[in-house]
Every structure is written in structure tokens, then in C-alpha cells.
């Protein structure tokens, strides 16, 4: 889905050229806070949940105008080159409000294209927001990310599991086997390839892909390359999960202070206090892992990064799953209603934990990488 707004990247580059790094970061976060406060409402988010494949086009256009798709993409690839550490806090704010924008998918796809030295026009269009990417790495019948789709003669054939943003994206980064070798391929999406099936979280703009000889450009070859880019996606997605977990904790604490039963706020009962103390612990464990993975990614580490990304993936997924289900529990009856906020998180926590491969897959990666963590 192309943005109708004029790309603002040249103007943003000129503005940022005169700013310090932390000023830019502050500006981005201010913009993000303002945007979610003015443009996002639970009512609007609920509307997205109603229909399969929903996407907030107007919000995406605002994000494009602010240059968000370009934030972490390297300047050589057409981005602003501010690095993943500038993107992570932005993702965290979006995560608090279950806002779905394809920032991680766009960054990973553009960066993989740049690293593979292919389709520079697509990478630049992803940075500018004229194009939009989906990561189509999962398949029916596979908990992890090992593909069964086939690449041959410049074409990919196979079925991909519902991928976030595939309902609206112009391109997908698709995993497939070339012979016995897994790799990543760029596919320009056509409407005949996608099917926006109902999902646990319709606000993810997800669509399953049925690729029948779709034209594909090889981007990266080998299982390690697939893991590398999936791990970057996981390490960044962890920040959306941390944002969601923080929000669950804060609304649960607020509710526990306000809601009274048996003459006391429910937050005075240890059954609730201890549940929320556990939520806090899960959040901080997940955040710690996410910080370490991000620093490792920025430092350009390889083996250690893969292990830390797996830890961040598992830690952040566990934290958000736990926090979202116990947020419903803390809210009691009101927590199970459509009108209340908790189910947005309950849905989002689960689809985040699934989209890039289930926990058993990432546990294997973590255990494979354990030697790199001995003194990490």
C-alpha cells in the first residue's frame, strides 16, 4: 500500500543534521507519544479487531510523514541511519497501545536487501514509506521457521502462514528452500497471492500467502542468514512486547488501587499484590534481555547476538503473555468484555509470540547458543 503523503526524508535529514543524537531521540519519542495520544484510541483499535486484515492507513501515513519507516535503515539504503537503538523506544511506545505499524518488517527487509546488494529501489521505497514490507517466514505445519516452500528459476512456490502486514504490504520477505538450502527472497505481492483470514488479532493486517510461481529475487542464502534476519526481527519486536507488558502492569496496578472488594482495594490482598509483583519481575527480566540483545546487535556481534536475541524473544514473549493474561484476571469480569482494554494485549501478546516462530523453536536456538552466554 503506497503512502499518498510526500516523503519527508530530505527535509528530516536536513533538520536532523543539526541535532545531537539524544535530541533526535527525544524528538522521536515526543512525536510518538503525541501521535498515540492524539490519533490512537481504544475505540479505533477495536474497529481494527473487527475485520480480518485490518490496517490503520491514516496512522501509517502520519508515521511516514514523520520518517519512522526510515529511522533505523542505513543512510546508504535510503534511511535516516539512526540505528536500532533509535527505533526500539519508538516500538516500545507503539507496543503500549497495541499499535501495529510495519516498522520492524520494513527495517529488516530493507536491511537484508542492502546487505544482499539487491533491489536498492525497494529498500529506498521502504525507507520512504512508498512501499511496505511483510515478513513471511512461517508456514503451516511448522512451529519454527524452517521453510518448505520452494525456490527455483527465480520463482517461489508454497504456502506461508498468516504474516503480519501481508494483507496490505507491497512486498514480502519470504523464506524458501533452494534445493536443500533455506534462504530469503523478495516477492512483490499481488492480491491474488494473499488471503486475509480471521486471526486472533485482526489488527495485525495479517494475510496467508499462496505463492504459485511468484517472481522472487534471492536476498540471502543459508539457514544462518534466515536466523540472522529473524533474530533481528525478534530482538526489535521484543521492544513492542516490553511496551505492551509495561502497559499491562500499569493498568493492572491502577485498577488494583481503585477497585474495592470486602472493604479494601483488591491491591491490598496478597493474591493480587504478589501476582503484580510477579508481573513486574517478568517485565524486568524481559527488558534486561531486550537491552542486552539490542546492545549486541548494535555492536555487530554474531554468535552472541543470536543467543541474546533468542533470550530476548523468549523473555519478552513470556513477560507479555503472563502480564496480559493476569491483567484480565486482575480486572475480573470487566476484563473479559470487548469494551475493556485487556483483550487487546491478550491477543497481541499471543500473536507476537507466534509470528516469528513459537517458543520451542527459540528455546532450541537459545540452547544452541548457550556457550556464547557463559560469561555474557
Amino acid at each position, binding site marked *: 500500500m503506497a503512502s499518498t503523503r510526500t516523503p519527508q526524508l530530505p527535509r528530516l535529514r536536513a533538520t536532523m543534521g543539526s541535532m545531537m543524537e539524544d535530541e533526535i531521540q527525544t524528538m522521536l519519542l515526543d512525536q510518538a507519544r503525541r501521535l498515540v495520544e492524539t490519533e490512537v484510541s481504544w475505540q479505533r483499535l477495536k474497529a481494527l479487531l473487527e475485520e480480518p486484515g485490518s490496517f490503520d492507513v491514516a496512522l501509517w501515513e502520519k508515521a511516514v510523514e514523520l520518517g519512522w519507516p526510515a529511522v533505523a535503515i542505513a543512510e546508504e539504503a535510503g534511511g535516516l541511519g539512526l540505528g536500532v537503538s533509535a527505533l526500539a523506544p519508538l516500538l516500545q511506545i507503539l507496543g503500549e497501545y497495541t499499535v501495529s505499524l510495519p516498522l520492524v518488517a520494513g527495517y529488516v527487509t530493507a536491511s537484508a536487501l542492502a546487505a544482499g546488494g539487491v533491489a536498492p529501489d525497494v529498500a529506498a521505497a521502504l525507507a520512504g514509506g512508498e512501499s511496505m514490507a511483510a515478513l513471511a517466514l512461517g508456514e503451516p505445519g511448522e512451529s519454527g521457521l524452517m521453510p518448505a516452500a520452494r525456490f527455483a528459476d527465480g520463482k517461489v512456490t508454497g504456502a506461508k502462514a498468516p504474516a503480519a502486514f501481508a494483507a496490505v504490504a507491497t512486498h514480502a520477505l519470504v523464506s524458501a528452500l533452494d534445493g536443500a538450502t533455506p534462504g530469503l527472497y523478495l516477492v512483490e505481492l499481488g492480491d491474488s497471492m494473499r488471503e486475509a483470514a480471521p486471526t486472533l488479532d485482526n489488527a495485525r493486517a495479517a494475510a496467508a500467502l499462496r505463492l504459485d510461481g511468484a517472481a522472487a529475487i534471492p536476498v540471502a542464502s543459508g539457514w544462518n542468514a534466515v536466523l540472522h534476519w529473524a533474530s533481528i526481527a525478534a530482538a526489535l519486536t521484543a521492544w513492542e512486547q516490553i511496551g505492551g507488558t509495561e502497559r499491562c*502492569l500499569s493498568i493492572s*496496578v491502577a485498577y*488494583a*488501587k481503585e477497585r474495592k472488594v470486602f472493604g*479494601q*482495594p483488591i*491491591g*491490598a490482598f*496478597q493474591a*493480587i*499484590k*504478589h501476582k*503484580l*509483583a*510477579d508481573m*513486574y*519481575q517478568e517485565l*524486568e*527480566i*524481559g*527488558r*534486561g*534481555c531486550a*537491552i*542486552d540483545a539490542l546492545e549486541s546487535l548494535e555492536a555487530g556481534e554474531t554468535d552472541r547476538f543470536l543467543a*541474546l536475541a533468542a*533470550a530476548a524473544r*523468549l*523473555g519478552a514473549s*513470556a513477560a507479555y503473555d503472563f502480564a496480559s493474561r493476569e491483567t484480565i484476571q486482575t480486572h475480573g469480569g470487566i476484563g473479559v468484555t470487548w469494551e475493556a482494554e485487556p483483550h487487546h494485549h491478550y491477543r497481541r501478546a499471543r500473536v507476537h509470540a507466534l509470528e516469528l516462530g513459537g517458543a*520451542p523453536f*527459540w*528455546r*532450541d536456538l*537459545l*540452547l544452541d547458543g*548457550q556457550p556464547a*552466554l*557463559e560469561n*555474557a
Partner: protein
Amino acid sequence: MNEVAPIQAESLADYVERARQWLDSVTPRFGSGAQRGLETEAWVALARAYQKEKAAAGFACITLPREFGGGGGTEIQKILFGQEEFKRGMPWGFYGVSLGMPVPMLLRYGEKDAIDRLVPPSIRGELLWCQLFSEPAAGSDLAALRTRAVRDGDGWRITGQKLWTSWAQYADYAIAVVRTDPTVPKHAGLTFFWLDMKSPGVEVRTVRKLAGENEINEVFLDNVYVPDSQRMGAVGDGFKVAIETLMIERYAVGDDAMGGPSLELFAARAASARINGRPALEDGQVRAALADALVERQGLRSIHRRALTAIGQGKEPGPEGSIRKLRLGHRRQILGQLLLDLLGPDGVRLDPSEVAATDAAWSWITVPGGRIAGGTDEILRNTIAEKILGLPQDYRPDKKVPFNQIP
């Protein structure tokens, strides 16, 4: 104190390097290998000898002033030295309480004469202090304590019973919190003293812990005389001073297995253990347990590293450091249980020559106290909920009632 390098002039990295070199040089005589199979008496003798050398090398009480035999160094130096010391399994635990709380408190509240006379030999390990806080009816709820002190001329007479007092059977001196006024609410009627454990009326009985360890005691105080000059803080301020005591060691040091087997050792044991002939490490439940523990360890390491950075910059570390003990105690217990499961019927062995850091059975059987001492899991959760999240305090019907009118 002699032959001690000028600490202020060296970088933190140089300091740690010097600490490592010194520790490596004494590890063969004092490290975990030298402690294997020692009975309590022999272990205490080893700990005393170690403390003497540590003080001579300038690594005892790193943050206390050099004029009393301390290291004159910084909090971050103390933490980093402690980590290195922990890694090598040095026998620091005998003086953990003595030098961690009572001696710094004496420096804050003691009379000059007492400080000059008692602090230097305490730092050298010649004198040992214990902490008379908990009682049979006052553990998590310290302010419920019943030991009484009544005025007697220039001093006080103390009568009551203390419990869970580490190393009291070897202690020369103690700090104590006692009730001086039962007619006011429980927190307001306490006063803090230091006292001589050789005073008439002090009797110590060792309480054997469930795995047979002999470090904790009950201490009976029968009309024990304490001069008023040994009062620490104002009459009625005892609870505040006790909390101040517990805050001194607010950033505790330890390894990230809380003294149990490392996750690397767990993985190695799980790889060699067999379930129906297959390596146990291939079992999904074992993999999930190990992965969970690795994630937790990484998160805690990240928290720890940020705390060290903050402390190194003279800032207060974030409150998230408080989750460490709660997580690691429980983790050590469930991993110990699982590792024993992997050993199957042979897991029942409890080899007297083994220790918790390398043996699942010893790790498992000695860990329960770790989830209770220094704040139970339940109290730690309450603290997170109340102090960090701002949730209401538990219902406390006795809080504002005069102590002697609590039913």
C-alpha cells in the same frame, strides 16, 4: 596496615586486576577446594586465617576508612572484589554479618573509644560480631520482638530470646534491637544497643539446620547489663536504626546461581544423564527448564550490569535489582530438583565430600533457607508491590495499638 598500594590512584580495571592476582595467590589455601569436607571448627579456623590475610592486603571492609583497617575504597570496588571472591568460593561468609552490618554501625553510632578499641581487630577478623534481631515470634515482622530492656542505673538490663543468629556461638560482640517501651505501638518502643557477648546472662545454643549446618543459634539473654553508653541512636529509635542497618548492604553480591551449580554445569550434567538411553538434554521438559533459567539469568545480569554502572557513577541503582534474590533462590531449588530427577535412583546420594556449587543434592537440600533468610519470598513480593508498584500495605491490625495491648 602496611604495604598497601595507594588505591585512589589506580583505575577500576587495575584495581580488579590487583584483586584477582591477590585472590588467585591465596585460592589454593582458602578457596572452595581447600574447604571440601571441613567440619565447622576447621572451616572457622580457615575463615579466620583468610580474613587476617585479606585485611593485611587491604581488601577487608573496602569501603571503611583506612585508619581503622578498612580499604578506604569505593562501593563499586567492594562489589567487584566481592564478585571475584565469590567466584573462587573464598570463606568470606563467616564475617559476612560481622563486617557487613554491626561494624559499620558501630562506626556510625559508637563512642570514639569503642571504635578505636574494637573496629580494627574486628576488621582483621580477631573479633566477631553477630546481629541479635529476629526472635521466635518476630521474623518477617521484626517490630513484633519481645526481648525487653529496662533501666538500671547508668544502663539497662536486657531479658529475652533471640533466634536465627548467625555465628553467635563464636561472636565476641553483638548489635541488638530490643523493646524499651511496651506501652507505645510496636515500632515506636524499640531501642538499639551493642553488647558484649561474654556478659553474664548471655547463653548461646546452636540450632542445627535441616541439612545439618551449624551456623545459626538461639541466644538467651537473662538480665544482661548493658551500659547506656552502648545505646545506638535515641531511645525509641530502634526500629529506624535496625532498618538503617539492613540498608547498608543494600546491593548484595553473589554469583548468578546463588551458590548452586551454574547453568553450564547443569547443561553438562543433563547431557551426560540418560533417560531410557537418550541424553536427558534432548528431553523437551529439560530444555524448557534450562531455557527459562538462561533467560532469567540474562535478564538479571543485565539488571546487575546497569546497577554497577549506576553505583560506579555515584547514582542510586534502579529498584529492579531487588528481584535477584527472589528469582535465584527459587530457581536454584527447582533446578536442583530437576537435576536430581535426571540422576534418577542414583540421585538420592548425599556425598559428604561434595558442596552445593557442584552437586545437585547439596544444592537442593541447603537451598530452603535461602528463600527465607534476608527476606522471605513472600515479604520480597510484598516489598515489590508496595515500594515499587505503590500498592497498599497489607492489613495490619496491630500497627497502631500499644504493644502491651495487642491480643
